[in-house]
């Protein structure tokens, strides 16, 4: 088995692609599910199991695992929304008479391991807004009722962003306390539990959503991705639809740290250094009505001072004629290594925290997720 950080896992529109690090280069290490969209794929660092969420156009969302790095796969039962659960129509609707339809699994947004000392626990973030929990290594899944029944969802304050219905795309387990979790929901915002999911608190204070008539609601924000510094878990970051925010107090308050006059504003992805909470990377794009690379040039922007200043890292990246966007799970970091994959099938990697980039390939399918494993 390759050491941690020596595997790259691409979840693409046409399958799961693996690469392994050998002799200072990334080498192809297998293709699985050729032709099938992989919404998210990751290796559970506790068990070494490779997980893949599939988004079949015809046959629904499936979940598979591999214990041998993709040589063989086993389909496990995908989570089901309980019978009788309903969602309202796609956009924000507080009208209790708005049409309802059955809540069914529409997308597997992310797969997250539980705490280090609970190796059988896994989480799934899904559309239309359900957080599913497994305590048997993924054999069976249960909907987390307290979050699903949160008054803000029942009041119609969760709604779709990018997809038709609200989705949970970020699941962050505090490495020091596995009962403390954050989830990021588009669109609703960030929620925290301190009791293993028995109760949830909204953590959106300080955000501003200029796509809403009242831009400071308690719920209804669009954090495209939420990230936590594992070495300092009161520090969280979010690449939001409306800019970049950070928190230094465990998400109780958020401060806008978007770049004034520079590219680091709109985007989907954000990663935080494992140890230095002031150091973060984002993948800028032209805001939201356009969604292409800023100025036709690819860059990753990095801050090392908590968002006071940003540096656009461009060396080795194409600087003209780019239309790429990096989706929310398309940027990852492991130690000094970074890598990202784009909507137009480009994948780049860096061994020096983004200072210099090299191309892994230009002809991949659209990349939904890129994770180190």
């Amino acid at each position, binding site marked *: 088995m390759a050491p941690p950080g020596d595997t790259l896992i691409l979840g693409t529109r046409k399958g799961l692609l693996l690469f392994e690090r050998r002799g200072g280069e990334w080498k192809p290490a297998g293709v699985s599910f050729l032709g099938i969209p992989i919404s998210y794929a990751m290796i559970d660092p506790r068990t070494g199991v490779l997980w893949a969420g599939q988004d079949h156009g*015809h*046959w*629904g969302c499936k979940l598979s695992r591999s214990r041998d790095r993709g040589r063989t796969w086993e389909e496990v039962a995908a989570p089901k929304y309980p019978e009788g659960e309903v969602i309202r129509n796609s956009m924000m609707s507080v009208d209790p008479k708005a049409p309802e339809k059955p*809540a*069914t*699994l529409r997308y597997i947004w992310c797969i997250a391991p539980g705490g280090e000392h609970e190796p059988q626990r896994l989480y799934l973030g899904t559309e239309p807004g359900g957080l599913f929990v497994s305590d048997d290594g993924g054999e069976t899944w249960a909907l987390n009722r307290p979050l699903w029944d949160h008054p803000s969802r029942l009041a119609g304050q969760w709604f779709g962003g990018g997809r038709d219905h609200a989705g949970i795309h970020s699941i962050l387990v505090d490495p020091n306390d596995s009962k403390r979790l954050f989830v990021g929901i588009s669109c609703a915002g960030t929620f925290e539990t301190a009791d293993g999911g028995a109760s949830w608190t909204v953590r959106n204070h300080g955000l501003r959503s200029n796509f809403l008539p009242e831009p400071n609601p308690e719920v209804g924000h669009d954090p495209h991705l939420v990230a936590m510094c594992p070495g300092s878990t009161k520090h969280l970051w979010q690449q939001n639809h409306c800019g970049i925010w950070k928190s230094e107090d465990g998400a109780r308050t958020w401060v806008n740290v978007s770049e004034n006059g520079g590219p680091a504003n709109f985007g989907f992805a954000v990663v935080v250094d494992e140890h230095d909470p002031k150091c973060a990377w984002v993948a800028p794009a032209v805001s939201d009505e356009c969604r292409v690379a800023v100025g036709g040039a690819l860059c990753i922007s990095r801050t090392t001072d908590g968002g006071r200043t940003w540096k656009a890292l461009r060396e080795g990246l194409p600087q003209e004629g780019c239309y790429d966007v990096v989706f929310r799970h398309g940027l990852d970091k492991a130690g000094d290594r970074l890598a990202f994959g784009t909507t137009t099938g480009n994948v780049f990697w860096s061994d020096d925290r983004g200072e210099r980039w090299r191309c892994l390939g230009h002809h991949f399918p659209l990349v939904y997720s890129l994770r180190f494993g």
Partner: protein
Amino acid sequence: MARVEFTRHLHRFFPALTDSPIEIEASSVAELIGALDVRFPGLAGYLCDDSGSLRQHVNVFVNALPVRDRLRLTDALAPSCAVHIMQALSGG
């Protein structure tokens, strides 16, 4: 007995379906899919969503006519009918 044929795209996930047509005793589409799931575990989840309705891009034909009730699958099956389970032409 309904005689059931499947789109070849399902063979990838359920290789045993290559032996179709499959003969199944069922008086409705819902019964048919339930019985298929017993013989080919997991198949119902490919055809129907969590609520038991046909997935949007799955088509079921009975004697060459599309089923009318895609939500609750109540269409009756006459003895010796022919059932085709197909995928819609969608995607890219």
